[in-house]
């Protein structure tokens, strides 16, 4: 029997750090390829269709970036929170809360010129997302209630609330019976940035926030405190870092990012609130953050990567007659492979002793 053990590397080689995500993605694609074969299609042609579907034309490229917009924001939400070891699994609910705020303020209650209306809606969306997280973070800080459970469960509560509002008081009377909210007023709609596509200003805004988060995390006292709390809260507290305040700020920032994803979807992509506004963008954000190793700039790339898989898989599924669920499988495998690759980056494998059977 061949035995092996892991030994921590004193220092990981740079080439390995840079190359490992690509190797991980490659491995995931090969593994998913096996499933494509099992589904009865040619994997090479399928992947070709996937790439064409995601990047092959102006329209598909724009669609990929539009899809990446909310995922980048929820990815940022997870990155900030996870850095402080605050396990916010509730980006989905916070996204919908942001969308509710957009609908509440953006469908006629407040009318401002575009240049003010759009920032106003983003602020309200961010506040809504942050405020949704506020009671949960207080429960954690005062009573040590596990935030994984509370944030996760609140997602379902929020989705049911949205469902109630859209079936009842907030239902748009002009919607021919569909459960959807009133349209966002023209001043609030995020303008297209590529004509005749669905790509809107939200994408630029999400990139802007990725850089902002990067700046906050790496250049400011707040970011420094977030890092210290995440890496060793006890030591940080002994050095006078205010844990309570820091975790509170983390929660507000994280919830805020997710809330703004609700704004981009409501005021950018759709124009009104629907029940299927987010096909799990909140959860996808966790995968995006993991893929990027919680780096905010990396989140832009992993967000676009994930979006391209989802958008491309639709095209692949139509052309090759394979299930769209393959997209989920590819994403899941990629996350697993990336996590595994981190083990190889940080540890080396030592094989020893081929033992004979006695």
């Amino acid at each position: 029997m061949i035995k092996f053990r892991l030994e921590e590397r004193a220092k990981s080689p740079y080439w390995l750090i840079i190359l490992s995500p690509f190797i991980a993605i490659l491995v995931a694609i090969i593994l998913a390829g096996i499933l494509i074969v099992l589904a009865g299609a040619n994997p090479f042609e399928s992947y070709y269709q996937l790439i064409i579907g995601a990047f092959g034309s102006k329209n598909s490229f724009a669609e990929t970036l539009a899809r990446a917009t909310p995922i980048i924001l929820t990815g940022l939400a997870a990155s900030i929170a996870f850095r402080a070891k605050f396990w916010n699994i509730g980006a989905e609910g916070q996204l919908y809360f942001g969308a509710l705020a957009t609908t509440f303020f953006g469908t006629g209650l407040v009318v401002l010129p575009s240049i003010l209306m759009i920032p106003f809606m983003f602020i309200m969306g961010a506040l809504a997302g942050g405020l949704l997280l506020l009671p949960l973070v207080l429960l954690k800080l005062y009573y040590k209630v596990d935030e994984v459970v509370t944030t996760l469960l609140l997602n379902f509560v929020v989705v049911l609330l949205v469902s109630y509002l859209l079936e009842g008081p907030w239902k748009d009377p002009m919607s021919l019976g569909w459960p959807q909210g009133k349209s966002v007023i023209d001043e609030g709609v995020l303008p297209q940035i590529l004509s005749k596509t669905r790509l809107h200003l939200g994408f630029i805004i999400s990139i802007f926030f990725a850089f902002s988060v990067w700046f906050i995390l790496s250049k400011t006292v707040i970011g420094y405190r977030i890092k210290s709390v995440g890496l060793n809260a006890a030591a940080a507290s002994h050095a006078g870092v205010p844990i309570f305040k820091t975790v509170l700020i983390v929660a507000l920032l994280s919830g805020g990012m997710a809330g703004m994803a609700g704004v981009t979807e409501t005021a950018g992509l759709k124009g009104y609130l629907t029940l299927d506004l987010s096909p799990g963008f909140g959860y996808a954000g966790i995968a995006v953050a993991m893929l990027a190793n919680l780096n905010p700039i990396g989140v832009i790339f992993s967000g676009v990567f994930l979006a391209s898989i989802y958008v491309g898989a639709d095209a692949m599924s139509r052309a090759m007659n394979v299930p769209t669920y393959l997209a989920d499988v590819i994403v899941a495998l990629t996350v697993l492979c990336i996590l595994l690759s981190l083990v190889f980056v940080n540890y080396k494998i030592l094989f020893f002793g081929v033992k004979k059977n006695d």
Partner: protein
Amino acid sequence: MTTLLKVEKITKKFGDFYANDQISFEVKKSEVLAILGENGAGKTTLMNILFGHYTPDAGNVNFEGNAIEFGNTNNAIKLGIGMVHQHFTLAENLTVLENIIIGRQSIFSMSLPKRHARVKILELSKKFGLPIDPDELVANLSVSEKQRIEILKTLFLDCKLLILDEPTAALTPQETDALFSTIRSMIETGLSVILISHKLNEILAVSDRIIVLRNGSSVGEIDAHSADRKKIAEMIVGKKIDYPQKKKIPRKSKVLSLVDVSYNKTDAPNLSKVNLDLYGGQILGIAGVAGNGQTTLAKILSGHFKPTQGKIVFNEAKSVLTSPKSFMDLGVAYIPEDRNSDGIVGDMEIWENAIMTEMDDPYLRNSLGIINKKTSFDRSENLCETYDVRMQSIKQRSRLLSGGNVQKLLLGRWLMRKPKIIIACQPTRGLDEGAIASIQNLLLKAQQNGSAIILISEDLDELLTMSDDISVMYKGMLSDPTETSSTDKLSIGLRMAGDGFL
């Protein structure tokens, strides 16, 4: 005497760093071998190789004439090598008996052969003077009792060579004596022991031979019976040691009092009606076995815990004390006892740790909260230079620092603030002689500058050299201070075991 263990030219590299460089030694039957060395000298790496945690890059180890299989702990145990780690590996919610036998059972077996084991354990316990109650829950035991169980665990597996890593770190003098008589009775029955420690006095009392490691190489082998303490200490460090010289200074005004402070919660050992006065320029030593409330006291004094009763009076405190930060602002510095888990953020860089207490300093940041890297680097370089923190670069990850350098960094970080009160918990625990001397000298210098210091320590030698007065803590009670000049180890040791407390 026959040779039990023969280590030949063991070399272990981590990257370009030689943790062990061609180390050779032997352990004979019925012998106590002590391995001494600074933190980072390679003691732990060497023991981990012997016990099968690491695979060496070169070299051989023979046990009773058979080559041991590297990287296989089970093999080491099977051969008869047992190890008691500094940090115990016991399941608190199981009984003593279960803890001793559990690791040896197949995971699929449905029952534990308790009856047979009980007989054997009680036999061993009698033979080696290790009294235990096999049905007691481990959670209810003291540190020294837990250690007995760890030793019994290895004896239960019929070990022939017992490796003890810093076994006396948390014992009272009386418990240490008991441990040493156990070691002696083991030797009489033909076992061999490897002791890893930095407490030279104790090592000399119990070992036969001493091996000194420095920077991964063996720098000498000494007969313990004819050894000179200071010479060994200097051999370990590789240079002359500047031993601390205590100078008494006149007491200044009172800086802090605790009045009937109690702590009554389930998250930490409790305190009952602690009274304490502290004066500028005074070092008040607090002795006690770990877990008697010293840490709780330190956390109350630094604002991490709030007393459930009683009050804390600072000399000039008119401000409201709400958070650790407000205590810091009053001039309290707190050196936590576990410097790696509570002191330093290992995965942050040295400069980041160096400025962690100073984030309000406008010299290091602007009003928008953006950190000024240049001034922060300057400050950190300055700190490392002033307090002799040895490192390659301030951008190095802090966890790569040795224990002594971590402590110098943490202490230096506080001393830069010119604290009025320093609460130092076990500031030299686990450090080598050279680092101990540096830390003690830094504390004495702070005292000369007028700081009041509360020194919580389990090392009685340290308390006796450093303190002006010594109080003893037992089950949450604090004795009145005694002047150091009018007390000795024996009487402190007795009080640590509860003598004189109601």
